[in-house]
């Protein structure tokens, strides 16, 4: 049994976790960074687009807060957005310094471009390469591995936290390479475990997004908020080798690809004009699919013929993600579908990124409150970066104040019980089948368009699926990925219940949460939905949103924010 001790423990090796580890080490702490895969390789961070939205300078920060809060349909944590906006530039400067090729003009300032769906003034950074995620991840990985002050634990899976008297003591891990359970003691634990969109089919994020942090924080009594808001988007459904890929249909049309058509060959308009552009191409796809029940029986669906896409365009910006696979796999036609980009909700944090448990922080996609009801495009990256920096600083400050406890017997006990639990895992299906069933249930009953009856049916099916359990055939100790899938399934089914319970509670349609029985957004009622484990059960409650800086319906929000900054009234 290994008993490792450290000052700051960061769980999750994407952009958020990396920035947090680097900041904590800068503050003089001993840091351990863990990841269930090799670090800085395959989290959601890799699909960051080059047009990253970054406010530079105070005026842009004010406008950024206003835009973000409006996009989130007024449910976001305004204090958190303000703190994020203020230090975004710091993170970008660091990335530029370690070699990420953001474009700069001749006067040394960052080149800015417009993003068509967002603000009127150019506020996005630009790169001459088609994707931002890979160079950022590669640069961070190289930098962290060469910084020997950070201890890296790769291929270790977070199993549980240890909390005593509402104070975090550390975390238990399953070592995938060796097949044993071990404990890392730390008074400051930061969850950077990513989003939970793998509970749906056609996931646009990588399959690592199984909501491990959400489920484990929930099991330890944290409040989890905004889980009803799943940001569904238009993606590729078939061929299944590339399902979940971002197809950037506007760029395809620009290069001469024929318009999308339905199963009868009739053209489908993917861009009807809507008041809010964030619902752009979702509705016509939904109505076609719902009408015809697209399936392997070829009874419906929307298709895009790629015959007109020329090989010289395969690696262009905007086409790149799809184009690379079109070239190598010889794809001639794609069928469109709906898939989640991410879950907007997560662990409730204050503007120091701390959760309800003393010493437990949440950063990046696993934290809730920044996005509110909608994903405000191109901001995932700065949220991950800045919350990483904030938590790195706050955790370093706080951890000096806590006394040590005698943990050896508690830890030994927990490790023994965990070993027994793993040996006695019983159920009727394999974890792979269980996860497939979960995805089918979630899309059918808690998909983009929901209803009371549908959600209740889905909840019943989820409970049945959970009861039926999973069984493991593989008895190997080293790299038993079937066992890891079983752990992930346990987390995913808890997250799925959170999504459905929150969706049942929100009796209106707002942002990405659409209910056919409550199709309008209810004004003057601004609540967030919270799930929390109380005496073993999932309790659901509402809490009114605090409008710290701007109020709904206000005119001229920018000057109001400027006033608030000047007077310190926020």
């Amino acid at each position, binding site marked *: 049994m290994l008993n490792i001790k450290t000052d700051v423990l960061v769980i999750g090796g994407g952009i958020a976790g990396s920035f947090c580890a680097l900041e904590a080490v800068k503050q003089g702490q001993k840091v351990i960074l863990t990841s269930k*895969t*090799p670090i800085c*390789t*395959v989290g959601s961070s*890799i*699909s960051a687009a080059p047009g990253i939205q970054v406010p530079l300078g105070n005026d842009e920060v004010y406008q950024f807060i206003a835009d973000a809060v409006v996009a989130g349909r007024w449910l976001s944590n305004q204090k958190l957005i303000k703190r994020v906006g203020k230090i975004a530039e710091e993170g970008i400067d660091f990335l530029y310094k370690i070699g990420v090729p953001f474009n700069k003009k001749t006067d040394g300032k960052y080149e800015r471009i417009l993003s068509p769906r967002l603000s009127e003034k150019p506020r996005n950074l630009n790169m001459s*390469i*088609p*994707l931002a*995620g*890979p*160079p950022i*991840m*590669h640069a961070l*990985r*190289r930098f962290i*591995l*060469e910084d020997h002050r950070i201890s890296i634990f790769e291929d270790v899976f977070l199993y549980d936290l240890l909390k005593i008297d509402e104070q975090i003591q550390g975390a238990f891990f399953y070592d995938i*390479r060796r097949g044993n359970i071990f404990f890392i003691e730390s008074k400051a634990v930061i969850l950077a475990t990513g989003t939970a969109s793998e509970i749906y089919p056609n996931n*646009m994020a*990588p*399959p*690592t997004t199984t909501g491990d942090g959400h489920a484990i924080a929930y099991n330890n009594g944290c409040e989890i908020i905004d889980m009803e808001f799943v940001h569904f988007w238009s993606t590729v459904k*078939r*061929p*299944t*080798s*590339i399902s*979940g*890929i*971002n197809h950037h249909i506007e760029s395809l049309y620009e290069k001469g690809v024929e318009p999308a058509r339905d199963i009868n060959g009739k053209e489908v308009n993917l861009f009807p004009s809507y008041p809010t552009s964030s619902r752009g191409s979702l509705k016509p796809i939904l109505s076609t699919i719902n009408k015809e029940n697209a399936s392997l029986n070829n009874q419906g669906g929307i298709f895009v013929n790629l015959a007109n896409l020329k090989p010289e365009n*395969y*690696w262009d910006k905007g086409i*790149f*993600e799809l184009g*690379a*696979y079109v070239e*190598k*796999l*010889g*794809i001639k036609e794609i069928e469109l579908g709906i898939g989640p980009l991410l879950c907007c909700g997560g662990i409730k944090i204050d503007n120091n990124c701390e959760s309800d448990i003393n010493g437990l922080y949440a950063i990046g996609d696993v934290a809730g409150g920044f996005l509110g009801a909608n994903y405000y495009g191109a901001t995932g990256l700065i949220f991950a970066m800045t919350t990483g920096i904030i938590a790195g600083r706050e955790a370093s400050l706080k951890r000096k104040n806590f006394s040590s406890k005698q943990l050896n017997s508690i830890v030994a006990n927990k490790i023994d019980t965990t070993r027994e639990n793993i040996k006695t895992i019983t159920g009727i299906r*394999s974890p*792979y*089948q269980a996860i*497939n069933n979960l995805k089918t249930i979630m899309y059918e009953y808690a998909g983009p368009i929901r209803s009371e009856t549908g959600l209740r049916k889905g909840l019943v099916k989820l409970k049945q699926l959970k009861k039926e359990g999973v069984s*493991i*055939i*593989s008895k*190997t*100790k*080293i*790299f*038993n*990925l*079937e066992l890891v899938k079983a752990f992930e399934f346990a987390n995913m089914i808890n997250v799925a219940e959170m999504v459905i319970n929150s969706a049942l509670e929100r009796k209106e349609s707002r942002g990405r949460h659409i209910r056919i029985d409550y199709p309008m957004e209810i004004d003057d009622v601004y609540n967030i939905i919270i799930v929390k484990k109380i005496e073993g059960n999932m309790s659901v409650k509402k809490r009114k949103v605090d409008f710290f800086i701007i109020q709904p319906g206000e005119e001229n929000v920018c000057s109001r924010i400027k006033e608030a900054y000047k007077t310190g009234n926020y």
Partner: protein
Amino acid sequence: MSECGRFNNSKLKVFRFDPEVKKGPYFEYYNIPVISENMSVLEALRYVVSHIDPTLAFRDYFCKTNQCGMCIMQINGVNSFACHTKIEKEMEIKPAKNYPVIKDLVVDFGKADKYSCIFDGVLRVYRDC
């Protein structure tokens, strides 16, 4: 690439190695149905692990951007991305060349200097186009 057109099944010859078992490395054969003509090797391996043999270990991560390098393995003797290599009637799959094997198709990418070789290759892919 296959010149003979559509085929319904593919035979995969896959490298197996479990350091706990004294046996040493060997090859195992899997027969899988070809779901679509655009099936990738990664999808084929995913079929193996969810329908035939859950003990096969490989890094099953699909980043959807062709850039993470997690699916790099030797396919018919050449280090390739399993996510964008098209399935053929018969294929030989081994762990990525020049890296220590942890188990089956999982290798240890090690420290920056070794891993950055993969990444330099990946970055060059989109710099040249």
